Structures are given as structure tokens and as C-alpha cells.
């Protein structure tokens, strides 16, 4: 059943996307303003994957690179349209809808923005069900249906189309290009037919994200325990940050916390998202489960970089918005990041 996403849904959408970012995926604050402006005069129609026409064609759009750069660098929303158009031209198709690459973080509102700018409907769903560090972590990519061909559009007017690449080289290749283009670029990828979207996409995650965001906004002023309960999440700990070490290259970073009541030692391993949480040396949550950190006092959703010494945070694991099928689970679970946990 198609529905309409309006300006009034933006706050909830961004709140939900922040939570599903699992500590990464970029801060949606800047995009929230862009989207709010874009939806002042228009609305976006949201279709479920089943409602796409059989010969429909979906191009997924979002941003790639260092999300923090967005706070300082001007991001031109038209780059999204440029990249999408370039990819459509390259593929020789007329897109019928826009898709969201990852529902966690700023790429959720960016997908809506891309749809709004192109005047196309949006598919209710995404390709990750949360946020992952790399574009190759999408579910179709893990099933062998890579993101390429793809188009990258940079703020200085650059436009790069990658025709094809292997899974191993694609990520370093486009990350390098993005870095050269200024750090963050608009990306259009995963040009998929409607049946492909139905088969490989994660359906309904946009609706789930909105529900989560609405629940968060409603319960935000309640106590921390009530808030966590309202999200349907599991509270892992309420703890104070003792020490934090940033990720360095492939080596994950780690944050050590001490629980406020029981004195338990909590360890959080992270790259750009939270990967694993252990309490007293026992693993309590790990990817693909989404772990969200919420400031215990302001109830702001925190990113990995926000966990600084002295902060008291509530760590909770969110219920999955879309289950990852078993056959690809090992490609995105904790072992894929070089961890072995019990």
C-alpha cells in the first residue's frame, strides 16, 4: 500500500535513522535540514517493493565517504540527482523509483532527498537494514550482485562512472575517488530491476525506521529505562566511559565503561559502528545486531566518536528491522570483522 512521506515525517525519520546507524552511518542533522527544505513544497510517494511495476527500474542513491565531512563541506543535493542520472544514462534505462542504500544514518534521509529531487517514488526498504562501514556490505552485494556499475558525483562538478570492478577492489577504489573529490560524494549504485529489488532488498525497513523514530521522539522525555523499553530494545548497560581508543585502519577501536550500579566492566569494540559489547568479558551483543548508545541525561543518540571519557550512556541492542538470511549472515556478522566471540 503506497503512502506519502511528508515534511512532518522528517524528524522521526532522522531519529530512527540515527538509532539504526548503530554508532555510525553519519549524523543526519545536516541532511535533516536539507530534506526539511526540499519537502516544503512537495511530498514523496513510498511504494512497497511489491507495488513496483514488473518492468520497473530502481536506482539506489546516497552518500559515500567520511560522514563527518558533511558538517563542514557544502553538500549539494543536486549531486544525488546527477549521479543517479549518470547511472541511468549509462545503463540506458529510465528509473521508476529511488532506493535507499542503508537505512541507518544519513543515507536514509538522503535516499528520500534523492527521490524528492527527481520527483520519483521511493521504495520502502533498503539494502543493509542498519549501517555498515562499506558499500559492499549490502545484501545483494553479499549475494554476488555487486554495487557496480555505479556513479559518483563530487561537489566540484566531478562525475565518475565505474563500469565494473571486483568486490575486493571496488571499495578501495571508490573510497579513494571519494577522498580525492573532497571526502564525501553522492553515489548512485545498485541499479536493479523490480524483481531483483523484491528478491534481494530488505523490505519495509523505511517504515520500521519511521516507527522507531516516532517511538523515540514520544518517549524521549521519559526516564532512560522507559525510553529503552519504548524502543523495544534491550538495555545492555548504563555506564560511564572510562577510556576510549579510536579505530586505526583495520584495527578496531575500543571503549571501556564501568557500569553505574554493579561496577561491571563493559567493553565496546567499534570501527565506524559498534561491533561488539561485552560485560565482564562476556559478549552480550555483536553485529549484525544494532547497538545504540544514548546519552543518559540528554537522551541524544550518540555516535562512536561521541563516547568521550566521563560520558554516562545507555547502551542498548535494537530489535532487527529486517532479518539477515542465514546464508549471508556470516559475511556481515562479527566474524567478518575479524572477531571471535562466544
Amino acid at each position, binding site marked *: 500500500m503506497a503512502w506519502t512521506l511528508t515534511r512532518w515525517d522528517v524528524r522521526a525519520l532522522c531519529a530512527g535513522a540515527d538509532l539504526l546507524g548503530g554508532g555510525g552511518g553519519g549524523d543526519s542533522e545536516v541532511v535533516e535540514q536539507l530534506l526539511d527544505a526540499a519537502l516544503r513544497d512537495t511530498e514523496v510517494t513510498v511504494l512497497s517493493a511489491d507495488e513496483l511495476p514488473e518492468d520497473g527500474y530502481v536506482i539506489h542513491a546516497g552518500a559515500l565517504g567520511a560522514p563527518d565531512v558533511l558538517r563542514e563541506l557544502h553538500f549539494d543535493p543536486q549531486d544525488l540527482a546527477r549521479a543517479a542520472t549518470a547511472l541511468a544514462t549509462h545503463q540506458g534505462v529510465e528509473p521508476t523509483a529511488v532506493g535507499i542504500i542503508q537505512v541507518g544514518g544519513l543515507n536514509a534521509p538522503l535516499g528520500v532527498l534523492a527521490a524528492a529531487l527527481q520527483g520519483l517514488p521511493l521504495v520502502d526498504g533498503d539494502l543493509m537494514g542498519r549501517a555498515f562501514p562499506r558499500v559492499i556490505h549490502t545484501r545483494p552485494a553479499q549475494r554476488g550482485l555487486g554495487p557496480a556499475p555505479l556513479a559518483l558525483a563530487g561537489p566540484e562538478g566531478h562525475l565518475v562512472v565505474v563500469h565494473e570492478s571486483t568486490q575486493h577492489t571496488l571499495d578501495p577504489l571508490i573510497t579513494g575517488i571519494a577522498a580525492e573529490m573532497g571526502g564525501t560524494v553522492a553515489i548512485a549504485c545498485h541499479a536493479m530491476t523490480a524483481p531483483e529489488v523484491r528478491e534481494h532488498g530488505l523490505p519495509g525497513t523505511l517504515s520500521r525506521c519511521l516507527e522507531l523514530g516516532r517511538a523515540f521522539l514520544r518517549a524521549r522525555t521519559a526516564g532512560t529505562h522507559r525510553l529503552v523499553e519504548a524502543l523495544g530494545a534491550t538495555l545492555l548497560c548504563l555506564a560511564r566511559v572510562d577510556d576510549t581508543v579510536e579505530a586505526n585502519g583495520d584495527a578496531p577501536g575500543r571503549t571501556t565503561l564501568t557500569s553505574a550500579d554493579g561496577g561491571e566492566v563493559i567493553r565496546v569494540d567499534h570501527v565506524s559502528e559498534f561491533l*561488539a559489547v561485552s560485560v565482564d568479558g562476556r559478549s552480550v551483543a555483536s553485529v549484525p545486531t544494532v547497538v545504540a548508545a544514548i546519552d543518559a541525561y540528554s537522551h541524544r543518540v550518540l555516535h562512536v566518536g561521541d563516547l568521550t571519557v566521563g560520558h554516562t550512556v545507555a547502551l542498548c541492542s535494537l530489535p532487527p528491522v529486517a532479518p539477515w538470511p542465514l546464508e549471508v549472515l556470516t559475511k556481515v556478522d562479527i566474524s567478518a570483522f575479524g572477531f571471535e566471540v562466544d
Partner: protein
Amino acid sequence: MNLGMVPVGTLLDGPELAAARWHGGREGAHRGVGDVRWVVDGREAQPGDLAVTPAGAAAPGYRLDALLRRLDDAGGCGLLLLGPGADLARSTVLLAERLAFPVLTLDHPEPVRLLQRLTLELHEPDSVRATTMDHLLRTLAGLDDGADILDAAARVLRARPTLLTASGTPILGPVPELERLAQLEATVAHIDQGYVWHPVVGRDRRSAEAWLAVPEDSTAPARRGALAAGLAVMAPFVLGWLSRERLRADRDAVQRRDLFSEILAQGAATSRSTVERALAVGWPLSTWHTAVHVLAHGTPAGSEREELPSLFVRELREGGWDSVDIQASGDGWSLWIDSAKEPTTGSVRTFLGGVRRLCNRLPRQWELSVGVGRSYEGAEGLARTVGEAKDAALLAASHDARPRVEHFDALGVARLLATWQQSEVTRSFAETVLAPLRETPGDTLLATLRAYLDHGAAPGEAAAALGVHRNTVGLRLQQIRDRLGVDLSDPTLRLALHIAVRSLPHDGAEAG
């Protein structure tokens, strides 16, 4: 008894790990270490393990945390990481502190050698103990005397053990210096008041027949363990000796009883075989014998009645008189002491005094009556002195004043006194002289005077006999002096008063 495990702290602070760096969990240094084990991920850990692992195997940090957790769950006692002593993740340090689980790093060039050395260091007490026990067993093998067993054990254990009865009375070895009674109820080895205690448990397995104790010269678990194990090794040897002793004592007792009856029955016609058997049990019949016969009218309770003869013999020995033996005879016990020459009058008097004092020390309610016979030579002499002692004991029993101890010679004097007592002249003299004392209720002063004179004018002994305080006797004597107007230090007056007192019949109620 925690004699088992060495605290891991002693190993971690030991010479092999002097260069190791502590990262956390010092509070866990008391954890007992059972073994040193090379671990990879901690799943192979056993309780008591000191885990050794290459730092690389425990990287990245989350793995180390998980390893720590697993070791703690398995009941391990510490983690030694081999590698450069770089800072560990904060979470690891905090976790080590929280679990009180010692974590150290050591950069050691030869991990295998380190592991061997640690294992040796850990098990050294075991090997020392094993060697000691082996040595002890070999030393004890073949020893059948209690004192020999204790001496041999003392040499091997380098500490002098003591053998005690189940009630805590020392039998052999040095007397333990205890502040309070040892807790010897259960039959479990334990440590109490600086001594390691081990029960010598008999066949029934329920009660300890005796206890072995040895002072713990060190609180080191290894030393304690060695001492405890040493006592455990000794226990069966001691039990064997105790059993043999008991058997021998029982057999001896039967032989002696028969022999004693024979000697008394045969009198002058002692047969040659009797003399030979007497020699075999250690009774020299040809010497001079002085017999003592003990009657206990107060019938002490069962165990006291059993112990009375040995108690009497022991008390006599403390006074310097070694009795040859003590035998049940008639309704009492006869014991005798031997001397190579005929005892002098002085020594007989001293002996009599000693027996009197002894009887005063023993409980009043036993109502002891003791007779001492004259000294005679030879086998028939033994029969005769025992007979005299019995007669004297009967005479003593007829007295009211304590202690009821009489020498056979007193039988003659008693007859003389009896003549006087029955004389009207003496009687009226006494009635007159002692009248002032008879005005007191219960004839207290008369009884006091009687006790005083009976005990050779010694107020202390009179007080003991009356069962009152010495000062009370002193006070009463002053009253007696005042009432009678006599000087009690005059021997002539004392003799006159003594005759007077003896001539008066009295109702037997002792003033107290």
C-alpha cells in the same frame, strides 16, 4: 584443613617472575595455584591453573578480556602473558581488578623453560613432602616402641611430636604449651593453637584412641602439609604400639593378680616357682617390704574407682616412694614399696606423714581409710606386711578425724589409750578441764582442739582435716586458749589435753 594449595602470589612474587609486570588483580594473589598451564583460548583451563599464554594469542584486546573471563569461570588463579610489557587495554585492567584476577606480562626469551621452572617451583613442596614421607616410612618400619617411633619421627620431621590421650593428657613426648584445652572432639586432622593435630583412630573409626600433635614451626602451607602428612604416616604405627601395650598390660594384670593371691596364701611356705614368677613380673621378693592398704568407703563413681589405684601410686611417686605394684585385695587395694635394707624408724615416720598428706589432698567424699604395715623381709614378709596394713586400715576406718591413716604400731597404742579412756579418773578429769569448750554449739572448739592435737599441733593440717580455712583454725585456737587459760605450746599440757580429748566420747560430727 587448608593444607593444599600455595597462594598464587608466592609464585608470582617468586624469583622466576621477579621481572614480570603486574597489570591488575593483585587482590587475587591469595588464589590457590594447583598447576601451571599453557593455554590458548582459556577453554582448556582447569581449576587452580596459572595460565601462561603468548601475548599475541590474546590479541586483540577483546580476546584477552574473554580469556580472562574464561579463566576466572574455570577457577583459574592468574594469567601470565608472555611478550613485551606494553600497556593492556583499560577494559582488561579494570576487568582484572574487578574479578581480582592477577594479570601479568613478562618478556621471556624461553617460554618453555619458564613453564618448566614454574612447574618445578610449584611442585617442589610436593616432592619435598614425598621424599620426607618416604624417609619417614622407612625409618618407622620395624619400630615397635612408642618412644622410638616418636624419636624417629622427630628426626625426620625436624619437630618433636607428642602423643596424647583422647582427653588430652600427654603420654609421650614434650608437653604441648596450650593456652586452653585442645579441641579433640572430632576425629579430623586440624590446626589449633600453633599445633598440627592428627587423631590416632582405632578400628571402630568413630573415635580417636589418642592424638598426635606437633608444633607448627612455620605457617607455610608446604611445611604444614609436610607435618600433617608426617603425623598421618605415624598414626598407624602409634596405634599398633598402643594396641600391643594394652594387650600386654591386660595379660600382665591377670598374671600379677594370680601371683599376689598365691603369695598371700602361701605365706612362709612360698614355692620356688612362685618366687621365679615374681621375679619375671619384676617383684623382688627377697627385699624389705612395706605394705599400704587403701579402703575407699565413699565408693567414687565408676571411672574414678578405676583410676583410684593408679592415682594413689602416682601421688606416692611424686612424694618419692616408688611402689612395686598395687593389687586389688579384699575390699580395697594393697600396694607395697621395697627397700634393700630394713627401713629406719625415721623413714617409716616420714612415709606415714607423706601418706597422710596425700590422703588429705584426695577428695573427702572418697572417705579413704589407709593402713600401713610394718616392714618385713622376704616373700612371707610381703604376706605379713600386707596383712598388717589391712588391720591398720580397719583401725583407721574406725576414726572420725581425717585423714584416716594408721600405722600397724598404732594398734598397740590404741589399746593403751583405750584403757585410759575407760578409766573414770581420766574421764572426770577430762569433763572438768574441757567443760568450757563444750558450751559451743556442735562442740566446734572441742573438735578443733582434737584435730589440732591429732595432727601434731599443726594448724594447717588441722584445717585441711576439718575442711575449714587455716585462719578459722587459728581463730578457734585463740578462743580455746582464752577459755581454757592454757598455753598450747607446752608439750606437757598438750599431752594432758590430748588424753582428755581422746577420753571423751564424741558423736562423730565433725565441726566445719
